[in-house]
């Protein structure tokens, strides 16, 4: 099986068994490590770094590095990031030593405190300088931990971002809302730890266990590549008869995947299954068809299966991908983007907005209507539904997703190229139900799997004279397509709670007319998402098959008129 391999630093990392290190920084980091060990992870891979000797002593990791022994004398950094930073700098030799010869570093930490916030960016930098690919998992503090910790966490996040190959943010606050308030605080903290732990274990299993279809570090890196990529991760495991279906659904419903919808904007998706020798071809097929039914055929799917006897009868499915942030501001100013204020700035270039205004305005309006209901469901909503929205809200990392996961179809609806009068927004029938997204018919699936072959994205066609086609992708050539306006979700708890650093800044004057036209004074347009595939997806207009299960044959969405597809291909 041939995989695309990206050039550059990755080529240096293609050694057969990549060396992986999981680093926990601070007390929260140590907690994550403990959970990994409890879940059956290998302690040999783990390194705990903290200033506090107490934490280090109780840590499950096989290797422990005390930060700033002279500086803090084995005590905590006392919530002072400067102290944490200096401690890390003091221990630079030991830290660098730990990273030597390692290819992949998982850096887990809970920002907000002194050690984690101060030392993590430094540690990440050292790791990177030692030629490691650094995958950072951070949790952000609970609201009740106070504004100071929140601020510290955000500042630290901004510092870590440039150092990280990929960054996954988990907000304790949002995760906490998933838990019934009366449940133990222990559990609230455990949610993020567990998710992080799953992510790490899935990736390490994928890389370490011999695979029937091997996924190498280079492939993983190719998927996660990009300085400023937003990482998507989904993981599910199940046993029993329908384990394939259950596991893949769980993976797709993972918080970080937004119910699988964000995969639509990815360019490459890595799917990895592990299980013992009992994994059947039918199961593999089931998983792949389930996943590919939710993907644009243009998306490249890398795929691996590995045998891991110690996980027993379980079948694990991990879906990893990243969405690159092509749009200018976020890429150019990573630090600014990391601040909550910057995340709120709409980045749509002015010209296309003007052209697209009527339609762009009409669409999100219709979509936005059901949103205010969402907060009411906060507590009762299942984990998979809630978290992504929250993450979207505040975390700079995940600030760019389509707004409402389930509203896939209508949301990214683009403007028509010709000045067609605004069409009525699609009716409420647009909510795509789980079943529609889910099961792919076997027969379709057989022709449907775009396994390792990257399918070329069909070029946009010029509109035929006299025929108005409002499916022609304006953004497909990479220029003026970023006019899709998505709206952030104003979760009440967010709006009310904290007026400090999180309050959205006044919008740039150029954008306020749009908001007026949208009739949504209280809402902020989020930065538009821009990639060739997402714009193509956005162009879909399938008439009466809009919310039907798609029929994809040989990479084509057969529900689109043949006429239009032929036009696009230029036949």
């Amino acid at each position, binding site marked *: 099986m041939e995989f695309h391999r990206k050039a550059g630093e990755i080529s240096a990392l293609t050694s057969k068994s990549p060396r992986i290190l999981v680093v926990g920084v601070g007390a929260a980091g140590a907690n994550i490590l403990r959970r990994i060990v409890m879940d059956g992870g290998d302690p040999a891979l783990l390194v705990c770094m903290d200033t506090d000797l107490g934490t280090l002593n109780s840590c499950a990791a096989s290797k422990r590095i005390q930060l700033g022994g002279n500086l803090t004398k084995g005590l905590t950094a006392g919530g002072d990031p400067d102290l944490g930073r200096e401690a890390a700098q003091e221990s630079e030799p030991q830290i660098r030593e730990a990273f030597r010869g390692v290819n992949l570093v998982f850096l887990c930490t809970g920002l907000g405190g002194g050690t984690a916030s101060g030392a993590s960016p430094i540690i990440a930098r050292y790791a990177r300088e030692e030629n490691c690919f650094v995958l950072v998992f951070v949790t952000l503090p609970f609201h009740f931990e106070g504004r100071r910790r929140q601020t510290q966490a955000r500042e630290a996040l901004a510092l870590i971002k440039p150092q990280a190959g990929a960054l996954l943010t988990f907000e304790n606050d949002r995760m906490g809302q998933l838990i019934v308030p009366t449940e133990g605080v222990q559990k609230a903290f455990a949610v993020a730890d567990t998710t992080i732990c799953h992510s790490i274990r899935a990736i390490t299993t994928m890389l370490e266990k011999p695979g029937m279809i091997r996924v190498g570090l280079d492939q993983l890196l190719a998927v996660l590549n990009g300085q400023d990529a937003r990482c998507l991760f989904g993981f599910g495991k199940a046993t029993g008869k329908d384990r394939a*279906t259950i596991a893949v659904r769980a993976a797709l419903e993972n918080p970080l995947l937004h119910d699988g919808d964000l995969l639509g904007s990815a360019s490459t998706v890595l799917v990895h299954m592990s299980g013992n020798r009992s994994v059947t071809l039918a199961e593999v*097929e*089931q998983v792949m068809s389930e996943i590919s039914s939710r993907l644009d055929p243009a998306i490249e799917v890398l795929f691996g299966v590995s045998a891991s006897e110690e996980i027993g009868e379980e079948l694990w499915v991990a879906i990893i991908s990243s969405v690159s942030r092509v749009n200018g501001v976020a890429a150019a100013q990573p630090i600014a983007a990391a601040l909550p204020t910057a995340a709120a700035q709409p980045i749509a270039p002015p010209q296309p907005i003007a052209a697209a205004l009527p339609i762009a305005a009409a669409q999100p309006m219709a979509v936005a209507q059901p949103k205010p209901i969402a907060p009411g469901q906060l507590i009762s909503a299942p984990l998979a539904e809630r978290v992504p929205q929250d993450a979207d809200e505040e975390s700079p990392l995940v600030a760019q997703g389509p707004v409402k996961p389930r509203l896939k179809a209508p949301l990214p609806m683009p403007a028509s190229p010709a000045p067609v009068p605004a069409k009525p927004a699609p009716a409420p029938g647009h909510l795509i139900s789980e079943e529609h997204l889910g*099961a792919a018919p076997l027969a379709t699936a057989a022709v449907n799997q775009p396994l390792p072959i990257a399918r070329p994205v069909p070029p946009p066609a010029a509109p035929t004279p006299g025929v108005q086609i409002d499916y022609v992708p304006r953004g497909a050539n990479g220029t003026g397509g970023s006019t899709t306006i998505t709206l952030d979700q104003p979760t009440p708890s967010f709006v009310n709670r904290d007026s400090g650093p999180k309050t959205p800044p006044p919008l740039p004057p150029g954008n306020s007319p749009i908001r007026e036209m949208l009739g949504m004074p209280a809402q902020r347009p989020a930065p538009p998402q821009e990639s060739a595939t997402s714009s193509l997806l956005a162009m879909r207009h399938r008439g009466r098959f809009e919310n039907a299960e798609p029929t994809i*044959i040989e990479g084509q969405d057969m529900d689109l008129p*043949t006429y239009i597809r032929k036009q696009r291909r230029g036949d």
Partner: protein
Amino acid sequence: MARAKLHVGLEIGTSKVGFVVGESRPDGGIKILGLAHTQSRGVRKGEIVDVEAAKQSINEALLKVEAESGHEVSEVYLAVTGGHVGYVNVSTDLDIPSPPGQVEVVDLEELCEAAREVKLPQDQALIHTIPRQFKIDGRLERNPVGQFGKVLKGDFHIIHGDRNRIHNSVRCVNQLSLGVADIVFSPLAAGHVVLGEAQKQEGAVLIDLGGGTTDYLLYADGSLIASGSIPLGGEHVTNDIALVLEIPLQAAESCKTREGSVYFNSKATPQLTPLPDVRGLEGREIDLNLLNQVIHLRVREILELVKQRLEATGRLQAAHAGVFLTGGGSLLKGMAELVGNVFMMKVNEQPEDVSSGSKTTLRLPQYATLIGLVRYAQVRERRLNPKKGAMSLGERIGGWLGVA
């Protein structure tokens, strides 16, 4: 004389829900006592997506057919289709019990049971196990019963479909207090009407262009080679027209049936014609040439997909009797020529007349599947209760192979 057996067929199609009540006559013919249909709701691409809406339209059709036939329906033969339906050809062996060393009907049944054991993916349920051919010690036997030999080998065509989707259809029918006697893959039912034994022997392709799906069968040398369903059909044609011409679906449907044709001339100049009576769009004109081009491209694409799938079996060229068209889509103007062009084969449009009754509409291709359900029921009934009718051994085996 005992009352003639009544059979009821139900097809929950994408565009219409139809019921048929037919009487199985002792001479092997069937008499259609009632046939009714209503516009279908809640069905997309041959599959029920909205159970409540579907139930309602089924119930409407049920009331109609009961009134028309004067027969209270309690049990139906249900046609199923959809892109989830697939097939697998398997063969099984059986040692013929040594004395007498002669094949008996029970041996065939045992062989068939063995074929049913085929391992399907977990989510798939078996719909049909159709004997294709039998061999005794390697020699092909059309009629193995009574023959002597050591090893009996049977080839079977197994049709399977997504368990949940099939259950959904059955449950939907059950909720209306109707029993389901059997489920039948739609084109097989249509095949009972459209294809005679002679055509199956000669080799034939059946294409049923339905509203939501295009179903197909391929017979060669009297045995079923391939069967399947592509979830594309007349609705897609209508939808294409609506999207490209930017007219409502309803207008698109009437354009398709009244004005449309699969002929199109790429060099022709636009040919404007008023849009057929659609309220609110008076005076709007459409380009006939564009309309035909849209229809042509879609239909051609569907046919090419069918051809591609049938070619993959390597036996398409063995269909000497040509292509048999049925289903509402076959009524499009110019279909026969287009199918001929795509398949490079003879095209037959007229179904064989196997039924009699009060209506001339029974020969319409839209009803092939419905009528076929009754025919299927009749053949199945005869196989299960061979003693009731005075059937020769040959007929019984014919029945065996006939429940295709």
